[in-house]
């Protein structure tokens, strides 16, 4: 079925359009993004169970963007009275005027920017979802999660607890300007299953698996399959040794490949960083940054993932950008205001944490293309190194192209064979062009995952997805 657009937003649409008209008397550009997204979060473990109708993407509110004298200003609010449009417009004007007076008093100069185009467009996109979160049978879900948790506790060696989480949000967003009226409705769902157990030394080790995608609560059915690999993974990490620091040949599984994509040339080509002179990528357009085997796409249209929207939070239609083409950096991704400042086109990557937050250039799906190798051939080609599996976290350094990835575990490879020895955890660091320049093999398959969230600096959390094939390269592990 199609995920129906929010009746609430349809109800306030005439008043929002009136608000745009009212503010248009005082400002050269006015837009309003209105949101109404409902969903749930269910978390079940042996020791704690919870159900909530909120999660990181549920929201209802509005943000007005206005432009005058080279400056963009915003006013976010969530107590909108459709029968008081003039009063709302007055409150917005008055509060922004107070800020302008402070800026004048402090002698603040403005980073002057041109006015956004406002090409006419009307759009309604309602994506498919079999089971909407607001209609899901949470009783059945709790029962299934409880059974999975119990099974995990029985089958995962040493597990002190096994948690099963499910999140689903039905997102509705409406973007209104004088000439544009865009509406979209879609559902994304993600689930995870994890367990923890102590080593003989008392150090706690965690294993996890996840499912995610653009679709309804039916996506959580995939959690059962994820449980099946966790007992062996736990045996692996409980018996793991510490790695001897050094540079190694490595093969990255799709989750680690995705982490590299995200941290290496994901953040590094967010073009709001170009505006600030914070990204080295700006100086490397059309230059080699990886081997011939490295092609990377970015865009909400690249994959039907947790971030497969039709238009972004500035009303720009979703895109599919080839950032790296056979090792050559071609372009970055861009929000609308950064595009104006850089004299380029926006790519549909202007995202907000929610309506109350500012737009930044943000990733959507960041994905390496597949290659032509098999994992078996890749392992056979390694003299000495590690097959890296399971991502934990990463950190970008767009200014210097350093990369830090925390990885769950490495499986030792010697003379083309897995030896059975496991090391865990692993800190992978390196210089991005070296890492991508050393990519010598890529597998035929490809996986994109969207569990978790991405911050910009230490804030602004949004949903992203990333992935790719198995890659063979070299990196420093510690």
């Amino acid at each position, binding site marked *: 079925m199609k995920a129906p657009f929010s009746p609430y937003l349809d109800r306030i649409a005439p008043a929002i359009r009136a608000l745009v008209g009212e503010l248009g008397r005082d400002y050269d550009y006015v837009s309003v993004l209105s949101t109404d997204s409902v969903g749930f979060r269910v978390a*079940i*473990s042996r*020791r*704690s*169970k919870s*159900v*909530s*109708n*909120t999660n990181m993407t*549920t929201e*209802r*509110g509005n943000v007005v963007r206005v432009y005058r004298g080279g*400056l*963009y*200003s*915003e006013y*976010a*609010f*969530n*107590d909108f009275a459709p029968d008081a449009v003039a009063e709302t417009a007055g409150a*917005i004007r008055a*509060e*922004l005027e107070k*800020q*302008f007076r*402070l*800026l004048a*008093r*402090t002698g*603040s100069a*403005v*980073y002057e920017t041109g006015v956004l185009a406002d090409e006419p467009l009307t759009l309604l996109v309602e994506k498919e979802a079999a089971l909407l979160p607001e209609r899901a049978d949470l*009783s059945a879900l*709790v029962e299934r999660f409880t059974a999975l948790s119990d099974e995990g506790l029985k089958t995962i060696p040493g597990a*002190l*607890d096994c948690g099963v989480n499910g999140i689903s949000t039905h997102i509705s967003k409406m973007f209104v300007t004088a000439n544009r009226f865009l509406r979209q409705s879609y559902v994304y769902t993600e689930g995870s299953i994890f367990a*923890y157990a*102590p080593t003989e030394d*008392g150090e706690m080790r*965690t294993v996890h698996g996840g499912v995610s995608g653009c679709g309804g609560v039916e996506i959580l059915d995939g959690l059962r399959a994820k449980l099946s690999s966790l007992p062996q993974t736990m045996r692996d990490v409980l018996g793991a040794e510490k790695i001897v*620091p050094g540079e190694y040949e490595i093969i990255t599984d799709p989750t680690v490949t995705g982490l590299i994509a995200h941290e290496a040339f994901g953040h590094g080509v967010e073009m709001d960083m170009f505006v*600030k*002179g*914070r990204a080295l990528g700006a100086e490397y357009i059309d230059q080699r940054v990886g081997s011939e085997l490295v092609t990377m796409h970015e865009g909400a249209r690249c994959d039907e993932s947790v971030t497969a929207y039709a238009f972004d939070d500035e009303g720009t239609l979703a895109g599919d950008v080839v950032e790296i083409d056979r090792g050559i950096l071609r372009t970055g991704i861009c929000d609308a205001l950064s595009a104006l400042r850089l004299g380029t086109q926006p790519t549909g990557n202007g995202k907000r944490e929610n309506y*109350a937050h*500012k737009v930044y250039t943000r990733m959507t799906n960041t994905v390496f293309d597949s290659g032509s190798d098999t994992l078996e051939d890749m392992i056979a080609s390694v003299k000495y190194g590690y097959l890296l599996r399971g991502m934990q*976290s*990463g*950190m*970008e*350094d767009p*200014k210097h192209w*350093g990369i*830090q990835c*925390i990885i769950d575990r490495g499986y030792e490879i010697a003379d083309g064979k897995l030896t059975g020895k496991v090391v865990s*955890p692993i*800190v992978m*660091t390196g210089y991005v062009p070296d890492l991508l320049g050393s990519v010598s093999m890529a597998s035929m398959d490809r996986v994109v995952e969207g569990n978790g969230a991405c911050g910009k*600096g230490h804030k602004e959390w949004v949903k992203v997805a990333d992935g790719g094939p198995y890659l063979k390269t070299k990196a420093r592990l*510690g």
Partner: protein
Amino acid sequence: MLDIIRKKLEALGADAWELTEIEKRGWEFYFIRHRLDQNRVTEVKRIEVKLYRAIEDGKFLGSASGEIPPTATEAEIDERLSSLLYQAGLVKNPYYTITDTPVDVPDRTEPVDVEAIAEDFMRAIRSAPETATEDINSYEIFVNEVTRRTRNSNGVTYTCTYPSSTVELVGNARRDGHEIELYRFFTSGTCDAPALVGEIADVLRYGKDRLEAVPTPKLPAGAVILSTSDALEVYRYFVDRMSAGFKVRRISDWEIGKPVCENASGDRLTIEAVSSLRNSSCDFPVDAEGAVIRDRYLIRDGVAENFWGSRQFCEYLGLKGSSMVHNVRVHGGAQSAAEVRGGDYLEVVEFSDFQVDPMGGDIAGEIRLGYLHRGGKVTVVTGGSISGSMNEAAAGMTFSRELKQYDNYVIPSVTRLEKLRITGVAALT
């Protein structure tokens, strides 16, 4: 709106309920090299509801939480509350009670002057000691007036208004066409201009030093000193492991009255949870569940003294009068900062992202700037990483008498961890 929901809750038949309204008025300013990129205002109201149902004659307690949008119609409120009541019956947690002790501290309703605080931040940042080669790339200022109104079915009622501010700042340093950047994320109640300017001055100095840095050499396991906000990760590890949630989930095996670390040879750790800390962004005396926050020791002289946490997990441990912890004071060690810095060590002042995993105790961080002290010589280094385990490092940990505040934590200004693995990127000379 709050009264309408409260009346509906009372009529609904839930065994218990909690209702919290959080009203946030924010002023935000975004600058690129001191030129205004964008200004923003936020006026946001969140109404959170949690409903409880006793299950199987009170053997279990179920709960479900959600938000009521301020624009919800009465029919929508009824629908959302009914859903929550049904969902509360789905989860069976062992029975516990919600907060039932009347709040004995007065409401705080004094308004916050967001305009004045924002102006203080702007003027402070512009007074930082920038030079032609070390300067501020960009910064974002967020100033909020937060009003939290807490109500529950046991008659607990409390209202508190407080300031909460954030500054994100990026500094640059350049030489011979090469430019580097450093990132900082400051949180506080209001603007402490001298402290902020001092931090920015450090950032600019570190930037200049990083331009001189050589690749970190391959080193044997050794001492690492932390003297910036990264050290918070170390102390948060101890605070997290004293949480009732960790204890109930068996992630923490620490026990009251026993040392948190066997065979400790370093400083004895004392960590105090405090109800109030000057200029903390969490300077409120009542937690989100309506429990009054009292000063208490979590760890004293290296011995676990009090777990902390939500009412649910504290009751499971049989604890009375506990609460969440928002402000923390760590006591200083036996030595001065200069003494802690004795001998050979690597002092890291910039990481990509320094982490201490509160579950496993794993320590990890890529080095962006460090000062390697060996045989009386100091080398500025960059690259490589440090790794280790807090479970092992805690025993020999030492820290300074001198203290420093980072928002809601006061910690020793210098912390030393022994025997960490240092993965260098160059040969040792």
